[in-house]
C-alpha cells in the first residue's frame, strides 16, 4: 500500500494521518468528560498507527513507474476483504438480535448488549460495512475498466476506503456506548457525519477525475448508477444530518428539524438510502458483472436509459409512503403513494433488462453458481420492488405498517438482492484481482448459493406470516366491538416465526462464512502462470501526469 505511493504522496499521507491524530487528540481533550473522548482516543490511535506505518516506509524506494501502465487494483483488493469481514460481523449481529427477539433474556443485563443498541450495529454493519465496502471496491474496478483510465492518484482511493471504514467503526462502537441521533440508518452523531461528508466528497472527486480522463467516448451505464449513488447519498446525508451539537466537547447534538418535518426529512433520507445506496449502487454493480459473466450484450441500451432516469426521478418523491396514516398531511401521503406506484415501472424495466440480457446464457445460469447468484439477485430485485410499490398503497400499508411484513420486505431486498449481487460479483471479481486462474472451490460456491437461497426464503416467509398475523390480530374485533387481542397476544403468536427467522439468518450467515473461506483460500492458492487476459486488462490512460 505505502510502497505504491510516490514520495510526494507519502508526504500528503503523513499530513493526513498527522491531521487525524491531532483531531483525535482534540476530541479526546475536548470530550474528556463525555463519550466523545472515547472516540477521540480511538481516532488518535488510528492516526498514530497510520503515522508510524508512514514513517517506517517513508524512505522505501519510489514505486516502479511501470505501475502507471496498469490499473490500480490494490484498494479494490483491500475493499473486498473488508467487505467480507463486515459481512460476517454484520450478519452475526443480525443473528444475535434475531435471537434476542425470540429469547429476550439473552441481553445478560448489559446495556451494550440490549436490542436497541445492537440493532443499529446490525443495520449499519450490513448496509454500510458490508454493502458500502462492496460498492467502493467494485466501483473502483468498474470505473477503471469501463473508462480504460487508471485511478487519478494512489492516495485518494485509500483515503476513501479507509476513511469510510473508520466511519463505520466509530458508528458501530458509538451505538454500543449508547451514542445515537435516533434517526434510522443515520444514527451516527455529528462528528462522524462531518467525517463521512469529507470522505464522500473525495469519493465523488475520484469518479469525476477518472471519468474526465476516460478513453471511451461514452460513459457506461454502470457508472451512471454509481455516480447517482455517490451524489444523492451525499445530498441525503448532509441534509438529514443537519444538527447542532450541544457543545464541541459533547457527542450529543440536536437535529435542525422537529416534529413532522423531522419525520418527513428522515424518511426522505431513509427511503432514498434504500433507493440510491441499496438500489442504484448495486444496479451499477449488476450492469457490469452480470453481462460480463454471462458474456452477453446488455438487452437494451434504450431501456437502460429510461429505467435509470425513471428510478432516479421517481424515488425522490416516494419517501412519504413511510408515514401513511400519521401526523403527515394526507396530501403528502397521496403523492408519496402515487410516485411509488409509477416507480414500479422503471424498477421492473431494470430487472427485465437484466433478465433479458441472460437470454442466450441461461445454460450458464444453470451451470455456474456465480452467475446464478446474480440472476437470482435480479429476480429478488423484481419481487421486492413489486412488493414495495404494493406496500406503498395506503390500504395495504394500513395492514402492513409497524408489522414484521416490513422487516420481511427489507430482507427480501437486502438478502435476496443486495447480498446476492455482491457475492456473485465478488466471486466473479476475486480471481482477476488476485490473478488466480479460478476460485478455490466451485463446489463451495454451490453450497453458499443454496445456503443463501434457503436462508432468505425461510427468513422472508417467516416474516410475511408473522407480519400478516400481527396486522390481522391488531385489527380483529369481537362481536361486542372491542379488540379481541392484546398486544402481548400478538407477541406470543410471533414467537415461532421469530425462531424460524433466526434459523434463516443463521443459514445466511453460514453462507457468508463459506464465501469468506472460499475467497480466502483462493487468495492463498498459487498465482496463475499466464492469465487468460494478460496484456488485455490494461488501461489506455495511465494515472494523472504532472501538468495534466
Amino acid at each position, binding site marked *: 500500500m505505502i510502497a505504491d505511493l510516490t514520495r510526494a504522496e507519502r508526504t500528503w499521507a503523513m499530513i493526513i494521518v498527522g491531521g487525524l491524530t491531532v483531531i483525535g487528540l482534540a476530541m479526546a481533550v475536548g470530550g474528556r468528560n463525555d463519550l466523545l473522548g472515547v472516540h477521540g482516543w480511538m481516532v488518535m490511535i488510528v492516526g498514530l498507527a497510520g503515522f508510524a506505518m508512514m514513517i517506517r516506509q517513508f524512505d522505501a524506494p519510489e514505486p516502479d513507474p511501470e505501475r502507471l501502465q496498469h490499473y490500480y487494483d490494490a484498494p479494490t483488493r483491500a475493499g473486498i476483504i473488508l467487505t467480507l469481514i463486515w459481512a460476517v460481523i454484520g450478519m452475526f449481529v443480525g443473528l444475535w438480535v434475531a435471537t434476542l427477539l425470540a429469547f429476550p433474556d439473552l441481553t445478560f443485563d448489559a446495556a451494550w448488549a440490549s436490542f436497541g443498541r445492537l440493532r443499529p450495529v446490525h443495520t449499519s454493519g450490513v448496509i454500510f460495512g458490508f454493502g458500502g465496502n462492496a460498492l467502493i471496491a467494485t466501483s473502483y474496478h468498474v470505473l477503471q475498466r469501463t473508462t480504460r483510465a487508471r485511478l487519478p492518484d494512489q492516495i485518494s482511493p485509500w483515503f476513501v476506503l479507509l476513511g469510510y471504514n473508520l466511519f463505520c467503526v466509530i458508528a458501530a462502537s458509538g451505538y454500543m456506548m449508547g451514542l445515537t441521533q435516533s434517526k434510522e440508518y443515520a444514527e451516527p452523531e455529528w462528528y462522524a457525519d462531518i467525517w463521512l461528508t469529507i470522505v464522500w466528497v473525495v469519493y465523488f472527486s475520484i469518479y469525476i477525475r477518472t471519468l474526465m480522463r476516460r478513453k471511451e467516448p461514452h460513459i457506461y451505464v454502470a457508472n451512471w448508477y454509481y455516480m447517482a449513488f455517490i451524489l444523492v447519498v451525499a445530498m441525503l446525508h448532509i441534509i438529514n444530518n443537519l444538527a447542532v451539537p450541544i457543545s464541541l466537547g459533547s457527542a450529543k447534538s440536536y437535529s435542525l428539524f422537529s416534529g413532522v418535518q423531522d419525520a418527513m426529512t428522515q424518511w426522505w433520507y431513509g427511503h432514498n438510502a434504500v433507493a440510491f445506496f441499496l438500489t442504484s449502487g448495486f444496479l451499477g454493480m449488476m450492469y457490469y458483472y452480470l453481462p460480463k459473466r454471462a458474456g452477453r450484450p446488455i438487452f437494451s441500451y434504450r431501456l437502460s436509459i429510461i429505467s435509470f432516469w425513471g428510478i432516479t426521478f421517481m424515488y425522490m418523491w416516494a419517501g412519504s409512503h413511510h408515514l401513511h396514516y400519521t401526523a403527515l398531511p394526507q*396530501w403528502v401521503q*397521496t403523492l408519496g403513494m402515487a410516485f411509488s*406506484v409509477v416507480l414500479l415501472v422503471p424498477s421492473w424495466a431494470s430487472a427485465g433488462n437484466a433478465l433479458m440480457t441472460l437470454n*442466450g446464457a441461461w445454460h450458464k445460469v444453470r451451470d455456474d453458481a456465480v452467475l446464478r447468484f446474480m440472476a437470482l439477485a435480479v429476480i429478488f430485485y423484481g419481487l421486492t420492488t413489486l412488493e414495495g410499490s404494493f406496500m406503498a398503497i395506503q390500504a395495504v400499508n394500513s395492514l402492513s405498517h409497524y408489522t414484521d411484513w416490513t422487516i420481511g420486505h427489507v430482507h427480501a431486498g437486502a438478502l435476496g438482492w443486495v447480498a446476492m449481487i455482491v457475492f456473485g460479483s465478488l466471486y466473479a471479481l476475486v480471481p482477476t484481482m488476485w490473478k488466480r486462474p479460478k476460485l478455490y472451490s466451485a463446489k463451495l460456491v454451490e453450497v453458499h448459493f443454496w445456503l443463501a437461497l434457503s436462508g432468505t426464503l425461510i427468513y422472508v416467509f417467516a416474516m410475511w406470516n408473522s407480519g400478516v398475523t400481527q396486522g390481522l390480530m391488531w385489527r380483529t374485533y369481537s362481536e361486542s366491538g372491542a379488540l379481541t387481542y392484546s398486544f402481548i397476544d400478538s407477541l406470543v403468536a410471533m414467537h415461532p416465526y421469530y425462531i424460524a427467522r433466526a434459523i434463516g439468518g443463521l443459514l445466511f450467515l453460514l453462507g457468508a462464512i463459506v464465501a469468506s473461506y472460499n475467497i480466502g483460500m483462493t487468495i492463498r492458492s498459487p498465482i496463475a502462470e499466464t492469465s487468460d487476459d494478460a496484456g488485455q486488462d490494461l488501461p489506455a490512460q495511465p494515472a494523472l501526469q504532472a501538468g495534466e
Partner: protein
Amino acid sequence: MALSERDKVSGHMTTGHEWNGIKELNTPVPRVVYIFLISATIFSVTWTILMPSWPGINDYFRGLLGADQQAEVRQSVAEGVAERSSWTDAIVDEDFTTIRADPSLMQTVRETGKMLFAENCAACHGAEGLGNPGFPNIIQAPTMWGDDPATIMETIRVGINSAHDETRYGQMLAFGRDQMLPLSDVDRVVTYVQTLSDPAIATADNAEDIGEGATIFADNCAACHGETGTGMQETGAPNLTDQYWIYGGDRSSIRHTVYYGRQGLMPTWEGRLTPAYIKLLALYVADLRTAAK
C-alpha cells in the same frame, strides 16, 4: 470503438459501444414497458385527482372525493363507540349485582376484560394477575383496600399514591432509616412478624426476642396492620399473617421493608380509560377472584 453488429441470439443490432468487452443491444424499448408506464401513470394521476394531493402556496388540492383522513378516523372512532354503547351503557348504568347476574353481559366482561387487563394491568400484576415482586397478587391474595367490585373500581379510578387528587394513600414508614426504632428493635419486630405467617420460626432461643417484638409491633405497627397483624382495609395495610407477600416474605425482604419503608404506586386510570372500561375491569377482576376461590 467497435462497430455496430448484429447479435445472433436476439437478432438485434448492437449500439457499437464497447466497454471492456461489454456491448449493448440497441433493442427498442418493448411496447409492454410503455403500456405499463402509461397505465401506472394514469392510475397515479387519477388517484391524485380523487384524493387530497397537489400543494399550492397556502393550501392544497382537496381531491374530488373530498376525502379527509382525520375526519374518517373521528367518524370511525364514533361508530365504534356507538357500536359498543349497546353494552357499555348497561355496564355504566346497571349496578354490580345486576350485571353479575346477567350471563350475556358477563360474557362481554370476560372477553373484553381479558384484553383490557392484558393491555393495561398485566405489565405490573402479571398476565394472570398473580403479581410480581413489588406488585400484589390481585386474584388470590386478600386485597388491601377491599375486594367488592365497587372498591376495586375506586382503586382503579384513583390509584394508590398516584397523581389523582382523591388517590388512595398508603405508606409503610422507614422505621430503621428514619431512626424511629433502634436496629435491635427492627430485628426483633422482624422476627415477630415472621412468626405471624410461619409459627415454626418460634423456638426456645428466640422466645425473648419474639416477646419484645410483639410489644414493639403493638406500639408501632398495629395502628395500621391491626392488633393481630391481619391488615386493615381502612389504611390499605396488608395482612401479615397469610402466605402472600408483595415485597417478599423472607427475613431479609421483611427487614428491608421495616428498615426502608415501602410506598407502592398504582397509577390512576381515570381519564386514560373510560368509566365503562374502569367498571368493566373491576368486574373482571372481581369475577376472577370469585372463580379463584
